Each structure stands twice: as C-alpha cells, then as structure tokens.
C-alpha cells in the first residue's frame, strides 16, 4: 500500500514539476539581467567587452572583476558589489578614469563632415543621423558619450569632438556639504 501511495505521489509531483519547468521557464539569465540593470549602458567598450550586456555576462560567468567600468565610477562598482555580495574594488585604471561633472556628448562639425556614415554605423544607440555624402548630426538626447565615433574612426580631424551638456537649472547640483567643511578646515 505504502509503495503504491509513494509511487502515485512521485508521479503527481513529477508531472507537476515537468509542467512548471515548461510553463514558468525563465528566458535568459536573470543574474545577467540584474547586473545589466546596474551598468550605465554607455556601450563604450572601455571594459574590454563589446557592450554593457557582454560585460554583464562576463561578470555573471565570473570571468572578470567588477571594477572594469569607468562610466559607472566608484558608485557603479559599489552597486555591483552590493548586488553580488562581493567586496568593492577600486576602478581598474587601465580602462580609464571616471569622469566627474556634467555628461559629455559628441558634436559633429557640419563644415568638415564629409558624410562617410562611419559614425552612423558604429553608434551603439542610433544617436547619429545622416546619409552617405550628407552632413551627419548627433541627437543629444540619445548620445551616451561612448566616444566610439571619435577619430581614428572618423577620418576627418576635429570633425567629431566631445562637449559637456549645458548646465541648466534642471541638472545643476548642490555642493556636497562634507567637501565644503573640508575646504573650510583646510
């Protein structure tokens, strides 16, 4: 009797688990998603991977340390450390330094642009518009400041340069009182 009951139970649970495995299947790796959610999505490749998602996959696979992303800065490393339960590390200086202050966006000099479309093709967020042999332009609202379009990709010197976005009431920030106190003490 006991054997029959246990066999039946095993069958019922087996079917239930089998159904659940199909019905509630998770597409993709949820750890990669949550790492990707913390990354700044600049898509600059400074970490040595071709974009934020590949870097997230590499972190999830434990192939690389969490300190490879300069645009994310120290706070980005901290966020990753919190998420993954690891110790925060200082940023890897080989990949570049974290930029302070206002965000940078690319700007194309319309006078010198030759309309080669190289930058249009490389822009990871489709923030550059333009057709062959026509002037190109950057859509500020979408530019992540990845600098992939800068020379040597752009064949014209000084045609594409980085500039900081305008300081307005909306993006102006209060100074850190902690820093103020230190300055006063100094």
């Amino acid at each position: 009797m006991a054997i029959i009951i246990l066999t039946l139970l095993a069958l019922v649970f087996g079917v239930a688990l089998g159904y659940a495995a199909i019905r509630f299947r998770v597409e993709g790796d949820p750890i990669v998603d949550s790492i990707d959610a913390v990354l700044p999505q600049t898509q600059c490749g400074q970490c040595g991977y071709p974009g934020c998602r590949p870097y997230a996959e590499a972190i999830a696979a434990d192939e690389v340390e969490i300190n490879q992303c300069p645009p994310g800065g120290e706070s980005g490393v901290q966020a990753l450390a919190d998420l993954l339960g690891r110790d925060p590390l200082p940023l890897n200086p080989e990949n570049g330094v974290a930029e302070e202050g206002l965000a940078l966006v690319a700007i194309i000099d319309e006078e010198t642009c030759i309309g080669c479309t190289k930058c249009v093709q490389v822009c990871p967020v489709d923030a550059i518009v333009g057709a062959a042999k026509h002037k190109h332009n950057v859509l500020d609202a979408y530019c992540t400041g990845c600098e992939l379009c800068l020379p040597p990709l752009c064949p014209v010197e000084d045609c594409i340069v980085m500039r900081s976005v305008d300081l307005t009431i909306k993006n102006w920030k209060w100074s850190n009182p902690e820093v103020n106190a230190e300055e006063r003490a100094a």
Partner: protein
Amino acid sequence: MKKLWRFKGGVKLPGFKSLSNTEVKQAPIPEKIILPLRQHIGEAAEPIVAVGDKVYKGQLVATSHSFISAPIHASSSGTVVDINKYSIPHQSGISEMCVAIKTDGVDEWDPMIEPNVHPELLSADEMRVRIREAGIVGLGGAVFPSAAKLKPTRSIDTLVINGVECEPYITCDDALMRSRPEDIIRGILLLRKLLNPVECIVAVEDNKPEAIALLQDTLVKLKDAGVGSVNTIRVVSVPTVFPTGGEKQLIKVLTGKEVPQHGLPYEVGIVCLNVGTTAAVYDALYSGKPLVSRLMTVTGPQIKNPANFEVLIGTPVENILAAAGGVISDKHTLIMGGPMMGMSLLNAKVPVVKASNCILVETSAEQLKSTAMPCIRCGTCAAACPMNLLPQQLYWHARGKEFDKLAHYNLSDCIECGCCSVVCPSKIPLVHYFRFAKTEKMEHEVKAKFADQSRVRTQVREARLERITQEQEARKAKRKADRQKKKAAKSDVNIGAVTDTDTDLSKQISAG
C-alpha cells in the same frame, strides 16, 4: 473665535521685523530691465518681441501655451535691446534666457489696458483667463501659476489667504496689508466667485496687530456699505511660530486638516493664496493691469536704510540696494528671500523676479562661520521638523548617498524650512545636506532613466543588425539556389550556350 490647531514642530525665531517695517517707497525705474522667461513653476514663456521693438509698460513680451506656465509683461516702457542669457536669481548663478529692455523713463502704460468697473459681472472662465493673461503666479514664494490653482477639480470648502509672513526680517506682506486692506478684501470677494468656498480665512500672525485691525475694520466698513458677502470672510490671528506660513502648516493650524503626502490642498477642499497674489488678482480684474511690480523688503544688518519698496519686476538687485542707501560694508552676503529659506546670490546684477519678496543683506559668513560637530543623536531636529520627518536619519543616509533609504524616510517631503539646522546643537547644516541629497537623487534617477533608454536603443539596434544579416544571407542563399536551378535547366537544353549563362549571371550580380 474659532478653535485653532497646531502643527507638530516649528521654532520660535527672533523677528527683526521693525527694522524694515516702513511705509512703502517707490523704487526708481532702472535704466535696464531684465525679464527672465521662467519666473514661475512650469514651462518657460517664449518671447513674442524682437530686439529693437518698442514696448509699453504692461505689454506682453513672452507667453506660453502650456497650462502650467505664465506670460511675462514689460514692467516699464522702452526698447527691447537684447534677448539672451543673463544670470538669474538662483543659488548657482546660472544664466537663462531673458528679455532685456532699455527703459525710456516715461513709464507709459499700454493704451490697450482698460479698467473694468464691474469685474464681479465676469464669468468664472473669463476671470481665470484674465488672471492667467495678467501673468499672476503665487507671490508667497512658490510661484505656481495662479490660474491653474483656481481651477480645482473638486468643490472647495475654504479659501485661505496667507498673510502669515513667518520668516524673520520680511515685512512686505505686512506693508501690503496695511496699505491696501480694501483691495485685498475686494480681491478675495472676486476669488470667492471663482471657487464658491463656504468660508474665506485671512490668516495673519499675531505679531502684525496693525494689519489685523485694518483688515477687520475694512470688513466692517464694507458690510456697512452693503457688501453682504463679506460675512463669509474671517480675519484670523495665528500664533507666531515658524513656519506657520508654509501652506501645509497653515492649513493644519486653521482647519486641522492635513494635506495628503505628494498631494495638493484642493484635495482636502482648500485653496491657499498669498495676500500679494490676492492684491495682484484685484489689480488684474479691476484695473486690467498685469503683474509688473511687487512689494519687496530690503533689510538686514548690512544695509543703510532698510525699507519696503514697490519694485518693477526685472529691476537689477544692485539698483534696489542703491535705493535703500547702499550697503554698509563689503563684508556682506546677499540673500534673496528670508534668512531661513532664502538663497544666497552670487552677484547683485541679477534681476528681481515675481518670487522675490526680500533682499536680505547679511553680515558675511566669515563671522558666522561655524564648524559642524558630530551628530549626537539628540533628536532635537526631529522634534522641530514641521513635516514629521526624521532629519537625523536623513542626514546619515544623505552622507552615504543611500537613495532608497532617503526615499524610505521621505526626503521629498522636506520643505527645506531650516528648523532642523537652527535647533541642531552640533550646528550641522542639515538642510544643505538635504538639498544636496535631493539633487544627487534627482541625477541618479535621471541617469537610471537614460540608461534604460540606452539599453532599449541598443537592443533594437542589435535586433535590426541581426535581421539585416539574416536577410542578406537569405538573399545570398536564394541567389545561389536560383543559379544552380538555371544552370541545371540550361545544361539540359544546350550545353554549348555558356556565354549566355555568363551574361545572365553578371546581370543578376549587378542588380543584386
């Protein structure tokens, strides 16, 4: 005397009000008027004049179609000389778009402006349109476009007219109530037509007995003159505690009601307007004049002749300082607004805007410099906070930039009144920490939103590239198959016709 309630917290502050509490003086017309296009909450107005245009006083120079916005009018007659970025009154000293007018000294009103003897006969919608077109915004400091406030989506029980003026030093609302009590009451009677409240309360702090008496006398006078609707108006003296003048605090004191978190007063059936705004409504509806000037206090230990002035909007601060006899020494700091909630100005060239109720010329921070000591967790700040927050918790999390914790402790509810900083025995500049944390949190949120946008755009681009590659491969495969089919067919018919097949192929390739 009806019952009054109390809000939690608040502080009693020395007033320094007698310093500036003079008759209202007229500030001279400056040579150049600078009118920022954003003097209100919401969208900036767009200029409708061009450089070189002659403008009358009260002529529209910038307007906006957005609901939450307000038009800007020339505050004196003259010529538009520039439409460009000028430093505006803001903590940062940032420059924003302004219309600069060189005045002609005639101060000639726009001839199109006509007085209206019976504005009470206008429909509610007409009144709202006129209030909007007059560029009236909340003059208590929040500069919310008044017309938007006067169109509540539910019925209103109480109209609160705020004459509390709880900040130390400032006396311009007091001066207004003493010089124009009847205009204020008549303004309230017009607002009644718009909102149909059960009652109207004019709230004044008990440190302004003269203003209270004058307003009450006016009520009696109007009643005797047969204006029956003044019966619904009460003048209420409220205890002098900072920040009773805060909208949410005043509503609590007068009605015992609490405005819901992230909510607006109309949700509890209340609309609250400043006395200055009420007088501006009176001007707009009776005389047709837009908001081109305001009363402003110039005071502080470092100014020669503190006084209240009627100032044209757009007058540079330095001109007003000169009108008040100039500063006493170079060791001064300029603050626009009061000592508690005002902002320090980086230079005196910035113009007076609709929100400017006071220029406080303080003694330079060098002498007041205090070194902050560590927080001792005494909890005095929590007892003083009028918004029921825990400043000491917010302080720790602001230092650590822990944004989710800051949200948990309701940082966004902080009204930056400064009570916590004043009572802190360790002299920690708590409000500075909260302002810092607010802008940091804002930046964090904007960045997160931008990252989401970039992620989607990257995914879409990758999907597109993938699709293009697949399509190319499919085309290639199809071409190959076609070629093989043709080859097979041709070889069946005529093995010798190689040249024909070659031309076909080359045609296909050039077409592809």
